[in-house]
């Protein structure tokens, strides 16, 4: 089949076709510079402030669904076949305010107004998903939106009141859902898209198999799933990323298989995509999952990407390693499986050959007697990178510890198991002494760095204390041993 040379998508109410889209072209620059849709703002260009929040609607396996994303680090090419909705599209043709906008005005939710369009878009998405949210749900939805003026209180008051101003049933995206679906469906031609100039090529494979083939054709290509990391290579470091193979649209990589002995997560599944399954099978990861970045980034970023980029401070590797996760790598039609911890060789170095990609992650379900916990320490509770993160899985047979897997992030150049601490627990009787000994062993496992997130001393001390917390918590301490959200 012929490759398609242009990308096609719906922008607000119109179909747009853009030829020659370079891999590094961002959606935000396209909106502001090309289309002069200046309601969407650039606050940080790194996906942390949310001033650029737009909705992207996509036809997935479950039909059309809209999610708030950061336009600053979303690449334009990855919008192929999607419906992009900006703040300009919210108020009616007669200028009447949208219920979210009306609520924000009446509750004085804006001061300087620069962050406001982004808040409006996040709250729009929230209102469609949860018309009458609790304050807690609002806070979770707004983890990716910074406001420096209001202190948030009026925005929260607006958010919980939106439904008083209108119902999602009457919203444009609901009433036009079938028409939009039909339009998006009509755009799907099953073709591989190859666009952009030679040195900034963007490739959108037609399927997972086509991806495997394309990666053999372009073995040095940058693989872009959610772009929550690669986006910053472009916006912050001005690095060329072409040729880039975009995979965020591949439903075949988003499959989540809930087997009898393991949960298998497709490498293209976003944090949001796998949130429910994670919560069902690993309840201890539910609250932890809510603290991964902000909502927009959870909608874009993938577990596969979090692993494949090899960061020592990614949120998911430590907690997946402790659960005994394995990673499935694919090259062409050949696959191999590795224990996740073995994938991380050294800082910036992973066990992935040219032409090879992470296809899925297999997480074994917890065994009888296995006690699991996941903790994250960061300067700010939400939307922050961890100073220390840890996954702890300890198996008891009677009162004896018969298995222990403890993996830390932020303590070494890679996500890494605490072998000495694990050894201090193995074969010991469950109790304070065993965990005290494990904590004492930790300095033999790690020599953490000092940086702007935390000092070496703090990393070590809090890591040791997290082992103590685990014991206290699992042992049923009389008073709470950690703050809850």
């Amino acid at each position, binding site marked *: 089949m012929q490759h398609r040379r242009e990308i096609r998508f719906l922008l607000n109410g119109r179909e747009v076709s853009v030829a020659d889209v370079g891999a590094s072209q961002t959606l935000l620059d396209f909106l*502001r510079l090309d289309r002069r849709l*200046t*309601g969407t*703002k*650039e*606050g*940080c260009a*790194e996906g*942390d*402030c949310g001033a650029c929040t737009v909705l992207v609607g996509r036809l997935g396996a479950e039909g059309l669904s809209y999610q708030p994303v950061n336009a600053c680090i979303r690449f334009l090419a990855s919008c192929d076949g999607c419906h992009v909705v900006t*703040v*300009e599209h919210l108020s009616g043709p007669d200028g009447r*305010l949208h219920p*979210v*906008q009306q609520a*924000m*005005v009446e509750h*004085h939710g*804006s*001061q*300087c*107004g*620069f*962050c*406001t*369009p982004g808040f409006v878009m996040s709250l729009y998405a929230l209102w469609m998903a949860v018309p009458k949210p609790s304050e807690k749900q*609002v*806070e*979770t939805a*707004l983890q990716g939106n*910074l*406001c*420096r*003026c*209001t*202190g*948030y209180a*009026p925005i*929260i008051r607006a958010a919980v009141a939106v439904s008083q101003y209108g119902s999602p049933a009457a919203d444009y995206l609901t009433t036009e859902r079938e028409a939009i679906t039909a339009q998006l469906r009509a755009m799907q031609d099953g073709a591989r898209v190859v666009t952009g100039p030679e040195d900034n090529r963007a490739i959108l494979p037609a399927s997972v198999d086509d991806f495997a083939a394309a990666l053999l054709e372009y073995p040095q290509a940058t693989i872009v799933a959610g772009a929550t990391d690669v986006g910053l290579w472009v*916006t*912050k470091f*001005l690095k060329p990323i072409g040729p880039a193979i975009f995979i965020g649209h591949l439903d075949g990589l988003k499959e989540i298989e809930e087997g009898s002995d393991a949960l298998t997560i497709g490498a293209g599944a976003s944090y949001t995509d796998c949130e429910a399954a994670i919560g069902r099978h690993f309840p201890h990861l539910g609250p932890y999952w809510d603290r991964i970045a902000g909502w927009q980034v959870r909608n874009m970023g993938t577990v596969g990407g979090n692993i494949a980029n090899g960061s020592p401070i990614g949120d998911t590797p430590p907690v997946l390693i402790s659960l005994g996760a394995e990673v499935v790598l694919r090259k062409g039609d050949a696959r191999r499986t590795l224990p996740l911890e073995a994938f991380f060789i050294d800082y910036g170095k992973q066990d992935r050959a040219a032409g090879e990609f992470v296809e899925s992650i297999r997480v074994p379900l917890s065994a009888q007697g296995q006690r699991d916990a996941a903790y994250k320490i960061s*300067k*700010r*509770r*939400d939307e*922050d990178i961890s*100073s220390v993160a840890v996954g702890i899985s300890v198996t008891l047979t009677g009162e004896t510890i018969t298995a222990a897997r403890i993996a830390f992030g932020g303590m070494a150049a890679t996500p890494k198991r605490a072998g000495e601490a694990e050894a201090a627990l193995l074969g010991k009787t469950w109790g304070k002494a065993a965990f005290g000994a494990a904590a004492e062993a930790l300095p033999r496992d790690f020599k953490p760095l000092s*940086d*702007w997130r*935390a*000092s070496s001393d*703090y990393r070590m001390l809090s890591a040791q204390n997290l082992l*103590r*917390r685990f014991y206290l918590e699992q042992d049923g*301490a009389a008073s*709470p*041993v*950690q*703050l809850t959200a």
Partner: protein
Amino acid sequence: MKDNVTITGSAHTDRIHDSAIKHVTGAADYTDDIAQPEGTLHAYLGVSTVTHTRIVSLDLSAVRAAPGVVGVMTAADIPGHNDISPTGQNDEPVFPTDLIQFHGQPLFAVVAETRDAARRAAELAKVETEALPHALDPVQAIEAGYPHVTAPLKLERGDVEAGFANAPNRIKGRMVIGGQDHMYLEGQIAFAIPGEDDEVVVHCSTQHPSEAQHMVAHVLGVPSNAVVVNVRRMGGGFGGKESQMNIFAAVAALAAKKWNRAVKIRPDRDQDMTATGKRHDFVVDYDVAFDDEGRIEAVGGSFAARCGYSSDLSGPVTDRALFHADNAYFYPHVRLESRPMKTNTVSNTAFRGFGGPQGVIVAERMIEEIAYATGQDPLDVRKANFYGGEGRDLTPYHQQVTDNILDRLVGELEQSADYRARRQAIIDFNASSKVLKKGIALTPVKFGISFTATWYNQAGALIHVYNDGSIHLNHGGTEMGQGLNTKVAQVVAEAFQVNFERIKITKTTTEKVPNTSATAASSGSDLNGMAALNAAEQIKARLVDFACEHWGVAAEEVAFLPNRVRIGEETLSFDAFIKAAYMARVQLSAAGFYKTPDIHWDRDKGQGRPFYYYAYGAACSEVTIDTLTGEYRVERTDILHDVGRSLNPVLDRGQVEGAFIQGMGWLTTEELWWDTEGRLRTHAPSTYKIPLASDRPRVFNVDLADWSENRELTIKRSKAVGEPPFMLGISVFEALSMAVASVADYRECPRLDAPATPERVLMAVQRMKGA
């Protein structure tokens, strides 16, 4: 006829922000949203990657040769003066010629067809340098014998030596207080359009258009009348656009004139945060003597500040730290000294509170020291030391405190927040909870209102009433989200007794009101509201004269009623009246002016009345900390704040809520972290953490002291609100401190430094465990 009963948007009523609808629809234009003329070029700054070095050579050939580049600009391209020091100290070059003084210092600008091209080209400079030793913080600077960037201030009253000698108790300590980045959501930006002859128009996100105008003129070597600076609104300022926009305005204007094309410059967030100044970090050595009841007898304090490489506004900032080192407390004998230290870091600048918060927090630390030393509830120590009573009303700068309302205000908050019972419950909780510990604190603020540079306390306004009865309002203040334009329009609506909607709010421009002061020091409504009222009163006086003459009535028989005017027995609509006045050739435009009365300040003597009045407030916060990790949560905050007779209660409440959260951020998660090489490593929201929605107190009760009225004749008896509530965030910090102190049974002051990140909290817990 409904609008004949009362006008919309009168003073003292809740009124939405004038741009609220434009904010939520994305229709509000910020500088980067203005449609660009054809051929607009884009500039970007090339910055140093070393900290303190001599420049041996600067090779820009690769920059010039980069794709899309039109040209570069260095110090040699400046036709006027290579200086943008806002206080005239001639210590802040646009581009340095021989010395790099901090990591990230702008060295040149590159101008290209697109911003992307300019940004990429800016990375290609080759700079040959010769390293010099550097000092990054005030302690290093003092040790290295670095100079002050500006003359220090000394405040002294009473007999300090005798005060210390005679007091039964004395504590000396040191407090380290971190700085703060403004993290306005809209970064710095300027957009210049060249005109004929020497003229240039600059659209700039700035709190101080007149200063941007003067700097552009200074750098171009043209008179101020050639330069127009415009700003419709900013996406946040907080002090960060009082002087820090100067380099961007200057570079955009220089390039626009050089190439005769419109030029825009917008740094990315990282460059914005590394190349522009922040709140000053302080290291304060305090010395406090007190009696056995905890009453302060003498205070000494040395306030060393990280000013950065140049003076910028560090003089007035460090002065204001001293002005507020008493907070709400009477010091019988006192000596305070500032040490505005030069450091090899970006030049620090104005930030909401302007040094005041760093003074206030030291006063609160001394209160804490006394409370732990005497075994008292810190609130009792606070109350015992409030200004008031015979001979206890003089500040360290010899201004009498005559309007203190803290006894009532704190008393009311203590009751409404149920402080005493909750404190006892917390002490009980801490006795049984092993890992989690709680703390509570009720802290006051007293904040002096007026620019301490007395000449800044002036303002102008311009009002046109058009012959269709519509009103055009302009004044020298700038809108950065605080609702200044809304409040001033309310004042004008009330003066003319017309609906708010009749008044067109327009961009701030140096063309309409000259020689304006920065919208800063919380002064916006006080100054510009008065100036606008003055303009309105002038027009009204002419209208009354006209009515008397035309209708043959006495002045008392002319009344401005809601949207109409009654003249004797006759009533006509405002429109019809204005039309009649126009036909009778009445001048319907006026320039208003205001200067704050009664203030004076002799800096050399350290005496005067620098402040027209004080604004007051108090907050009570409760926190829980995790003693295993140092993590914490703010459980509840209650605030009672004084805004006098509010011009717009709902907007004032928004200022109080927002300022509190920003103050809390300063003292908790917002940490500026330089590495030993002098690189700021927390320079974007990924690494610099301002509060999120989920960080705000779980319970948050905010009230205005609606019984308060300004005793001075301010605009409608209101009080300034921008800065004072920022310091209410200190209640969170003090509550954290109490939670830490619980680990050692409240026997010792934890001496928590700011910001109290989880790390600092845990390390303080460790110290207390060892105590």
